[in-house]
């Protein structure tokens, strides 16, 4: 459970006195480029504000030098912001004391690095358990946890090898395992797949999307590749010169690009390769339980003014759906007999692979994640409008 709220964040690199001067000049609304030249500083982030929702996969995209790496390093304070504040679940973190900061890094946030940042003198399992080791977790527990996590990322059998014996893709799996073994609320990924070759990269992207269903984390993902950004992101922020140019869902980038820079940036993106059910699904459906009385359900549906509601179990697992017309006519106390199960769609399915489902079907299709949890519905109209635009 962690939302991230960033308010007026700026980061200026340089000598302390020069930075002070640059801050002063920024407040006088001078041109950042001129300030940089005059004070010999680098303004990497310039008054950035936005919010990342809990459990969102949020992608920050931009060319090198746009400030995206600086921004992600502010979230675990590897970079100390010059101005502004960062609220994690409402708690301000930029003013944490040393001990508090260490606790924050140990328990709540972890990071995956572009060039892996593995400890070359340690075996894979020792790398993975590092985060637990420095927290003082006993050896047996941490080794067991490390083994489990290594299995999750698909490296079973490689535990006692050294990093230099692994390929790039495998190294990054170790980096990922090391980051999730401490069960942080926030996972920061700094261009994690940029150093990998295209085939491995695609494989890792798909794996992360599946893994995401199981770990329920807020993920901040950095990339310079627009295709990757749209493929991975629930929402995307496009950065340029330390500022955010546009922020929104992939769909919004196509339907209303903020300016010519955005249009330029998304020109090469192949929509059929990136849009997945999750990008356009409709949320906020009426959910009911199987054991609820028929009358209650009817009332709820009337209150919400819907004709269809969805039946889920206590973990929000999809069971089926109910039609108002059918249950309204009945006299039974329960609705069990009327539940219609329609084969749900996985939320990471590409839209191009879903045409056949809509061929003779005009109603909304239920969408679930790989754990079977109900996530929303997909409408035929939405799909046509996205792919046609």
């Amino acid at each position, binding site marked *: 459970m962690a939302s991230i709220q960033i308010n007026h964040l700026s980061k200026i690199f340089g000598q302390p006195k020069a930075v002070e001067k640059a801050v002063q000049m920024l407040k006088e609304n001078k041109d950042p480029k001129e300030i940089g030249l005059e004070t010999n500083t680098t303004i990497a982030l310039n008054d950035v504000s936005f919010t990342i929702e809990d459990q969102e996969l949020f992608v920050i995209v931009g060319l090198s030098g746009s400030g995206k790496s600086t921004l992600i*390093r502010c979230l*675990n304070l*590897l970079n100390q912001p010059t101005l502004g504040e960062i609220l994690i679940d409402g708690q301000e973190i930029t003013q944490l004391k040393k001990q508090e*900061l*260490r*606790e*924050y*890094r*140990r*328990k709540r*946030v*972890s*990071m995956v*690095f*572009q*060039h*892996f*940042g*593995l*400890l*070359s*003198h*340690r075996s894979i399992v020792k790398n993975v358990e*590092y*985060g637990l*080791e*420095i*927290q003082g977790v006993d050896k047996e527990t941490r080794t067991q946890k490390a083994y489990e996590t290594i299995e999750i990322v698909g490296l079973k059998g490689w535990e006692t090898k*050294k990093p230099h014996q692994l390929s790039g893709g495998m190294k990054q799996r170790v980096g990922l395992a*090391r980051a999730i073994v*401490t069960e942080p609320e926030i996972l*920061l990924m700094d261009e994690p797949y940029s150093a990998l070759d295209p085939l491995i990269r695609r494989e890792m992207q798909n794996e992360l999307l599946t893994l995401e269903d199981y770990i329920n984390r807020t993920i901040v993902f950095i990339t310079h590749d627009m295709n990757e950004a749209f493929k991975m992101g629930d929402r995307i922020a496009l950065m340029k010169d330390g500022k955010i140019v546009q922020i929104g869902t992939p769909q919004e980038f196509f339907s209303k690009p903020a300016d010519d820079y955005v249009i330029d940036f998304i020109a090469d993106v192949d929509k059929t390769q990136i849009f997945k059910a999750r990008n356009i699904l409709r949320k906020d459906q009426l959910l009911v339980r199987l054991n609820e009385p028929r009358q209650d359900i009817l009332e709820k549906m009337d209150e919400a003014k819907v004709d269809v509601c969805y039946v889920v179990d206590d973990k929000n697992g999809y069971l089926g759906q109910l039609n108002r017309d059918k249950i309204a006519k009945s006299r039974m106390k329960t609705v069990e007999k009327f539940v219609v199960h329609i084969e749900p769609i996985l939320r990471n399915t590409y839209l191009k692979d879903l045409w056949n489902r809509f061929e003779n079907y005009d109603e909304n299709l239920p969408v679930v994640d790989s754990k079977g949890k109900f996530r929303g519905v997909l409408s035929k109209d939405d799909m046509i409008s996205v792919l046609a635009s």
Partner: protein
Amino acid sequence: MFNFPEQLIYKISDFIDIGVDWVLSNMRGIFDFIRLIILNIFDGTEFLLSAIPWWAYLIILFVAGWRLYSIKTGISLTLMLFAIGMFGLWDMMIYTLVIVVISVVVSILIGLPIGILMAKSKRLEKILKPILDGMQTMPSFVYLIPAVMLFGIGKVPAVFATTIYAIAPLIRLTYLGITNVNKEVVEAGLSFGSTPMQMLVKIELPQAVSTIMTGVNQTTMMAMAMVVIASMIGADGIGGEVLIAIRRLEVGRGIQAGLAIVFLAIILDRVMQGVVKKFERSV
């Protein structure tokens, strides 16, 4: 006209003399104490190294050369050590080795922490860098003077001068090894919430170990060079043999002792470099 003007000549040597005199007359006790400690360590180490029989040295060296390199290297290193014994210089070699070993150990004990502090503190880095440069360009004879003043003649000032002369590369390479640890690896350590001590012990030192070992190797070589010069202030050993040969103009004896020094240096260097390579391979 072309000569340096008389009135501008101002010698600092007098002041240094006054300073040293003051130190000697007021801190005699401390130096006597240090002298006693070094003397005891020296005798202890010499006793230990002499307790190992000569053939055991040959066997250990052969196995080390074989394991670290190849059988061929093992054999040639062993032959060199054998030659030193054959020249009748075995006991002197042990004596020289004692001075080198103590100097290197003391250098590590003092140099490692200084190198670490230097990597951590910008201010200390600024102060120490020129001092280290100075120490490495200062003619080695100069170190003999304060050594003799503080500790008189004999093996104690020899150990002292050798250590001071040899410590610089160890400090420098420890500093270099720690500051050169990959930036992302350091960031990774920080991002998991390591304390400064955990960073040092679990990440920085293990990552820097091969560079530090190179420093130990260089320090050993510097100590080997200095130990010969230290014979001028009363240290025995192979260096003493060279000194005698020079005084009596005995060319053969001098070359023989010189060869022994070269052999000993090669043996120490090869073994230590082999160890460094082992570390590099495992990192």
